[in-house]
Structure formats: structure tokens, C-alpha cells
């Protein structure tokens, strides 16, 4: 690693796991509280407001289902990248990460199309309580997808040079969490009518 100084977190394992991985788990812990808070609020309001069904009826389940498919598949390529990184095949890992990034881009494009349609139909974030939650929850989720794709890009570039392959697993853990959030958002926003 010539001129490149490795961060301390990279090699330390005092907790029984690499500190970098532990840090990602801590991020996920805090994300659980963020998304958990939003989703729990959504659920209790949804139960208390039967009239939201009229708004919820306008979400497009097939778009949500397609995006679920895209995210689950991008998780597969992320975990396959991890498998490749584990056996030291940085080039393959990088390629598989690029597939995952492709999934992220696809997800965001579908989301952009979906939101454009809804907003132009008048379903804006202020239209009703349901739509406020819809755009807030899906919006912070999409922000996570966006951020994850960018970080994954950096990691893929390094992985291609066989640098820091352990990071492939770590970004994977984050990515699977983002997938996980969507697994719950999908039935909450698209199926429960």
C-alpha cells in the first residue's frame, strides 16, 4: 500500500471483528431507529386514519413490486461480489458491485418516474397525511440508495486494483440493510390498501 495510509479501523479487530465492520453495524443500529421511527409512526397513523386508504389506493403496486425485484437482485450481486472478494478476485468483485450500482440506478430511475407521475397527478407531499409519509419514508430510503451507490462506486474502483477487498463485504452489509428497509416499505406503502 505504498503511499496510501490505511485507516486504523481497517486492521483492528479488538472487538472480535474488524472495527470497520463494527462501525457499519453501528450505522445500521442507528438506521434501525431512524427508519423504525418513521415506519412505526406511519403504522400507528395508518391504523388511526382509515381515510388514508383513499390515498393509498393511488400507489402503483406493480412499480413497487418491480423495485423490490430490482433491490433484491442488487443484493444478490452485492453478496456475490463479497464471495468473489473473499477468494481474492477483486476484478470479479468490482464487476459484481457495478451490477449492484446498476440496480441502484434502475431503482432510482423507476422512483423518479413514479414520483413524477404522482406529483403531476396532484399527489404532492402536502396532499394528505398518507402522501407526507409516503414521500418522507420512500425519500429517505432513496437517499440511502443514492449514497450507497456512490460509496459502492469508490469501493469498486479500489476492488478492481485488489485494494481493501474487505470493504466489499462491508458495503454489502449496508446495501442489504437498505434492501431490508424496502422489504418493509413495499407492503406498507403499496400493498396495504
Amino acid at each position, binding site marked *: 500500500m505504498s503511499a496510501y495510509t490505511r485507516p486504523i479501523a481497517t486492521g483492528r479487530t479488538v472487538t472480535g471483528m474488524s472495527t470497520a465492520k463494527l462501525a457499519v453495524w453501528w450505522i445500521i443500529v442507528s438506521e*434501525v431507529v431512524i427508519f423504525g421511527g418513521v415506519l412505526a409512526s406511519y403504522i400507528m397513523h395508518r391504523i388511526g386514519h382509515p381515510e388514508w386508504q*383513499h390515498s393509498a389506493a393511488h400507489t402503483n*403496486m406493480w412499480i413497487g413490486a418491480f423495485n423490490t425485484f430490482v433491490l433484491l437482485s442488487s443484493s*444478490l450481486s452485492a453478496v456475490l461480489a463479497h464471495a468473489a472478494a473473499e477468494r481474492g478476485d477483486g476484478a470479479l468483485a468490482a464487476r459484481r458491485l457495478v451490477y449492484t450500482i446498476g440496480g441502484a440506478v434502475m431503482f432510482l430511475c423507476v422512483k423518479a418516474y413514479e414520483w413524477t407521475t404522482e406529483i403531476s397527478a*396532484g399527489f404532492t407531499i402536502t396532499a394528505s397525511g398518507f402522501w407526507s409519509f409516503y414521500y418522507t419514508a420512500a425519500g429517505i430510503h432513496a437517499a440511502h440508495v443514492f449514497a450507497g451507490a456512490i460509496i459502492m462506486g469508490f469501493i469498486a474502483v479500489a476492488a478492481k486494483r485488489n485494494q481493501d477487498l474487505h470493504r466489499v463485504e462491508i458495503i454489502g452489509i449496508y446495501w*442489504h440493510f437498505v434492501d431490508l428497509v424496502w422489504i418493509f416499505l413495499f*407492503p406498507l406503502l403499496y400493498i396495504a390498501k
Partner: protein
Amino acid sequence: MSEATHSHDHGDHGHDHGHDHDHGAHGHDAAAHEKHYIKVWGLLMILLVVSIAGPILADDVLHLEGLVRFIVVLVTAFGIAIVKAQQVVKHFMHLTLEPKFVAYITGTAVAFMMLFFFFVAPDVMKHAGRNWENEAAEDAVRRGMEAGGEHGAPEGTTTEPPGHEQPFEARLEFTTTCGPCHGTAGGGDGPTGVTLTPRPASFTEAVFWEQRDRAHIVKVIREGGPSVGRSVLMASFAMQFNPEQIEALADVVMSFRPEPEPEEIAQPEEPPVPLEPVPIPEAPSEPVVEAAPPTEPLTPEGITEAETARRAAFIAERLLPASR
């Protein structure tokens, strides 16, 4: 998954797998890993199909209703989401292969989320209790249900703007926006109003109407008290309501006007109760209203019960149907 993932490090060795030799020696292990991951993905896909098919079957094929439908949707959509999540956590995130404390800290976060839910949910999910009532939420539900009903069966394909789902209810808006100061019955005796100096106008007194007409009311709502030389405490509502809504609010205010004595009727001046926009004289009306005395004593008179009932009946009869 036990044999498929046994070669995962359990911690201590760090994670520089790029240099691990044992993995290189077990090429078939890596292949088994990948096959395992693809299998998990296949299972997730099947679960996804089930979670979509369940509610569709319940609604469109079996036409289930009530509790049975609820249970089918709950199990297929949400039960399966939990199974999917469990698969992802175990096989993709490898939580079970991390040191135990990782599961504990994530579990703690989930527990806090539950705690939050169960502490707050009773207040949010219910709108009334033994000695409390969340009127705003009840109103929201009522308005939403009425608006939803207007559109007939909720269907996923309409493109009607939702803004029209909640009609502007002038009487309700008066109660929530004007009522705190002017009183819900327009007597100038709202809970906030009694603390103000000068006191808010009382619309139920004949003396108030001696020098004011509908155009004046519209102007004050739109431009605020100072526009007619009155208190700054009466704000301008031009930003909050559109002209039509201001007209509707003026109708509400007009409805508080006491019936004029028979001999006073000079011209037919029945206030137009339905929401008909009346052309508002713009600037020229100002000098006329300037004549209003600056500090008119707005003494709230004692109102008899019979009088209150008469006014309530008047409001119910004239306004409630009109504001729908």
C-alpha cells in the same frame, strides 16, 4: 446454510480475505457459496410473488372481506416481509456469523422502536378516551372519508388531484381559524380573544353592523385590521385563503348578524348564504369605512339560553348545508 458458510471467518482473523490461502484451496467452497446465495435469492423471489399474489387473490379472485381478508393480507404481505427480512439478515448480512453482541445492539434498536410504538400508539391510533378527545384527528377522518366516498370505489388508476378531496368547509375553518378570538358563535368571546386589547369584534351585535357591510368583512379578512384603520391584531389572511374561501368565510361572518328590526329594513339585504363570489369594490371602498370609530366598545352582552339556541338553529339551518 450451515455447511455452505462454514468457511466464513468468525472474527479473529481479520478480513483480508484477499490474501487468504485456504479459500484459494477450496474453490468448490466458493462455488457452493455462490450457489447458496442464488438459492436464497430464488426463495426471496418466490416470497415476493406470494406477497403480491396473496392480496390480489384475496381481493380480486376470492373476494374476501372483513377479518378473513385482513388476516390474508397481513400474513401474505407482512408475515412474508418478516420472512424475507430474516433471510436477508441471515444469509446476506451474515448477522449470525458476527460476534453475538452485534445481534444484541441491533436487537436493542429494534426494541427501542417497539417501545416507541407501544408508548405512542394509543394516543395516535385512538381519537377519544375517557376524558379526552382529539377533535382535529376526528375531523380529519370524517373529511377524508367523505371526500373518499365522493370518488366512489377507490381505484388505483384515477388521476384526480387529491387537493379536491377535502372540500373547504367555511364553518369549520371559521371555528378553527377565527374561533379562538372571535368565538365559535361569533360573539367575540373566543378563549384567546378575551385576553386581547382591543377585544375582537363581536359579529352578533347590531351596533357592529351599523357601519359595516359584506365588502368590509371581505376586505378585513383579506387585508387585516389596519386596512380599515382597526387593530393590527386582526391579521391579513390573503396568504392563507384564496378569494373564494374568503368569500365563504365572509358568509359565515354575515350569518352572525342579528336579524334587523322590521322597520330598519330599507333595502332587501338578505346575505347571500351560498358561496357566490360577490364583486368586491377594491380601493374606493376605503374612505367610506374609514368613518368607523377607532375604538368602538365591544361589550359582550349576556346571552340568554333561548338566544343561544336560536342562533345555533340559525347556523345549522343556513350554514351547514351551504358549506358542504
